């Protein structure tokens, strides 16, 4: 269940939605958590605690139910530059892409890549699409993209290789908010065509 990360971190191999992140944060000496699909990297102050003490404390924390997140309905204008190509890749109409994408409910697995970037699970199989052959130098903030079995929104303008199918005006990351990211691990998301 635990793997050595570095002399100031270890992995808890449990999906973040059930890992009880608030309780992990409260373990004395823990300074940061980096959740991902199936694991949580627990970063601690090595002068304040040890791998052994963190493991002992983490073992006492029961797994939580995955159904504790908030639900977000995100308005989207489905007009991305890759929508037509993605539709023809799957031999369906752009309207069908929108219908499939907007009908699904997604779960936030974790945030990573850049601040506020949520990896969403639950993309219908019919929309799984490889990344662009070469990443764009600049993807505008609010762009909704697809990469493999994943879908997500770029919270800020950044380079990126995801296929862009739309955009949203919703603010996903604001350092003045607590938490800074609108979407949190375990939250659910549906997209509403604007």
């Amino acid at each position, binding site marked *: 269940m635990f*793997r*050595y*990360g*570095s*002399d*100031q*971190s270890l*992995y808890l191999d449990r999906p973040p939605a059930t890992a009880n*992140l608030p309780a992990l*944060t409260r373990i004395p000496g823990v*300074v*940061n*958590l*980096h*959740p*991902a*699909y*199936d*694991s*949580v*990297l627990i*970063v601690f102050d*090595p*002068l304040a605690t*040890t*791998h052994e003490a963190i493991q002992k404390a983490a073992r006492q924390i029961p797994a939580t139910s995955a159904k504790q997140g908030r639900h977000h309905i995100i308005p989207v204008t489905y007009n991305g530059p890759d929508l037509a190509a993605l539709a023809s890749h799957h031999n369906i109409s752009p309207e069908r892409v929108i219908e499939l994408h907007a009908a699904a409910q997604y779960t936030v697995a*974790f*945030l*990573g*890549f*850049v*601040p*506020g*970037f949520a*990896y969403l699970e639950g993309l219908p199989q019919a929309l799984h699409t490889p990344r662009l052959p070469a990443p764009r130098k600049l993807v505008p903030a609010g762009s909704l993209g697809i990469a493999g079995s994943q879908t997500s929104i770029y919270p*800020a303008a950044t380079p990126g290789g995801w296929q862009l199918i739309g955009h949203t005006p919703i603010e996903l*990351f604001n*350092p*003045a908010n607590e*938490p*800074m*990211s609108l979407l*949190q*691990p375990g939250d659910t998301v549906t997209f509403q065509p604007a």
Partner: protein
Amino acid sequence: MTILVQSPGLLTTVQDLGRPGHGIDGVSRAGAADPIALRLGNLLLGNPANTPALETTLLGGTYLFPDGATIALTGATPSALAPYEIHRIAPGQTIQLGPLTNGARCYLCVQGGIKTAKIANSASTHLLSGLGGGPLTKGAVLNIGPSTNKPQNIQIPPVLKTYTKTLRVTRGPQADQFESKLFYQTEYQVTQDTNRMGIRLAGSPIPTTHDSQMRTEGVPLGAIQIPANGQPIILFVDQQTTGGYPKIANVITADLPSLGQLRPGDTIGFEQVSPVEARRLLLEQEALINAL
């Protein structure tokens, strides 16, 4: 009291000891690339250890002190003034810090600290997200905080201002996928493509013995990733919080300040130590600082 940035050099940012606790939002810790140099500068000036200072890079930059100040320069060696000493700067005096030698980053610490708006309890600049205001530009004016503490000229032991080019590492989570022997025998060049987010190296490519696609997972500070081209990337203070490349090794905490002082073109190597040894080296280093 203020500091006027006449030239920010290659890159100058405000840094304290970082902004931990926001990995869940995809935000890494940021903070001083050489945290020991920052702590020592603050110690000399009688500031709390986490007081913000200017982190200057390679060229150093030029700074005007309209009202004067008491400063200390730590980390890489500046050409302007002796490092690790207290200097009283007269009103109207200009300091041209660089070029820097013996490292990449020099901390311009001031008595009272740099006073900027804090975000989530930290003044640190996180370049990836823009938190903390971004790189300083020519003409920027920074406020100096009040201080009643007394600067003290403490002798800093040489070992705390010496940087290693043989970085000690612990085994990475995916070390089994690699010819580790080649990795530890290779001398690597630090490339130009090196910044606060990551340090890219060039040397004998490390082939993987395993081609499974790994699932993205959290990445620790100092993790050494091996992408498909076999050239290592060390994740640094403004790092991405997660990554999908396998990690062969991880730089130990005691050697992270040395990472912050690597210059493009430097030749470095790696030496594996046990987790127990990594911890012993850190506690030994901390004991030296605490004894000051």
